[in-house]
């Protein structure tokens, strides 16, 4: 087992974990050390010595601008919150009674006359697991063939990025990726002359989409919790830029029957292809 030496361990708030794990090879800690921890343990719960079932949830009282608000921070399935009674004995656990607020705990830890401790925690996560995110883009577009102009009528990206940590920010990431995808499909390319000198290395001639080049973006997520993610989450930042260019290319194939082999499908390349196909 790997003991998560983080703040949870130090101030003994048990993480929202299914189990609370003991340090490898250690037994029950000597009483007095336990006691010391208890004095500072604002809320300590460890029922792993029982049946090893999910750790109990933990209740905090946070002294926020004067108003005492009690948060049941973790609403774990079993829902029961328990707090250590101030008698210092580990076993007397009375559900729901707050012993010590985080603020009092911190003040105690900082300014105790005999056990001052600045409580910090540092952990390295050596990640040895991976998984796949996935998704798709669907687009409905119109091709003005004589002018080689493509107009997007409707476009959506649907993403499987596991559980979303922040839906609004996730959606914003996809908008940006779709915009990048449209540029990749239709206008963006770095050009060189035969001597290898770049020709369009500025924001006028390297055509990234402006607000007028973008359609309204539609985004949806299918949230399936992934066991590998810390909260069931998977990759989200990069994927939105991937499926848009192929979707646009394939919609042009459906609209005109012309199979474009190269992106960006600039107006000039489209007009040349339509001419060759006898469409204009």
């Amino acid at each position, binding site marked *: 087992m790997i003991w998560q030496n983080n703040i949870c361990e130090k101030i003994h708030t048990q993480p929202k974990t299914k189990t609370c794990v003991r340090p490898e090879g250690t037994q029950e800690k000597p009483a007095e050390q336990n006691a010391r921890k208890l004095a500072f343990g604002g809320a300590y719960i460890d029922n792993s010595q029982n049946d090893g079932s999910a750790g109990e949830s933990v209740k905090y009282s946070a002294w926020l601008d004067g108003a005492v608000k009690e948060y049941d921070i973790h609403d774990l399935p079993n829902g029961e919150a328990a707090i250590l009674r101030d008698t210092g004995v580990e076993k007397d656990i009375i559900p729901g009674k707050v012993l010590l607020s985080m603020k009092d705990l911190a003040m105690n830890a900082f300014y105790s006359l005999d056990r001052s401790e600045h409580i910090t925690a540092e952990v390295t996560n050596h990640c040895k697991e991976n998984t796949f995110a996935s998704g798709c883009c669907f687009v409905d577009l119109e091709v003005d063939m004589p002018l080689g102009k493509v107009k997007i009528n409707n476009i959506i990206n649907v993403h499987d990025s596991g559980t979303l940590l922040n839906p609004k920010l996730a959606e914003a990431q996809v908008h940006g990726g779709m915009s990048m995808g449209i540029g990749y499909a239709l206008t963006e390319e770095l050009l060189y002359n035969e001597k290898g000198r770049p020709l369009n290395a500025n924001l*006028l001639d390297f055509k990234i989409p402006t607000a007028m080049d973008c359609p309204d973006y539609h985004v949806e997520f299918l949230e399936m919790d992934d066991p590998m993610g810390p909260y069931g989450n998977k990759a989200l930042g990069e994927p939105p830029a991937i499926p848009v260019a192929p979707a646009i290319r394939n919609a042009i194939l459906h609209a005109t029957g012309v199979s474009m082999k190269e992106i960006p499908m600039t107006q000039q390349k489209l007009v040349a292809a339509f001419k060759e196909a006898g469409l204009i």
Partner: protein
Amino acid sequence: MLKIVHMWVNGNEVELAVDPRESLVETLREKLNLTSVKKGCGVGECGACTVLIDGVAVDTCLYLTMWADGKHILTTEGLKGPNGELNPIQQAFIDEAAVQCGFCTPGLIMTAVEIVGTGRKYTRTELRKLIAGHLCRCTGYENILNAIEKVAGIDS
């Protein structure tokens, strides 16, 4: 050699000795420490250096500080209320997640101030044209338009 330029910046009267070769973006950033005015290209392409000069959106990288004499300049630093309240546009940008890396944000907010200041309602397509002088690579402009619509109202 330096020349005296007299202007109002965010409501404060300012008198500066300025090198005629200076662009306004450099003066605002280096002499007045208004670092909200960002330089993204230096040639009037990206809009990140946009401020309002006498209420009109201008790229300050292509504006000689000499021309600012006698003019009123507004940057995002000047939008805050007396005790730090945000302008409704700034609040809308926060609420609508219209901000990501944030580099184009100040320029876009100033253009939005001009748009909202007209008191007119716009269609989404019209708004796209009004902010087309700003390049953004993070947002695809979607939530930026939502934020401006939220404050300016939508012309159905």
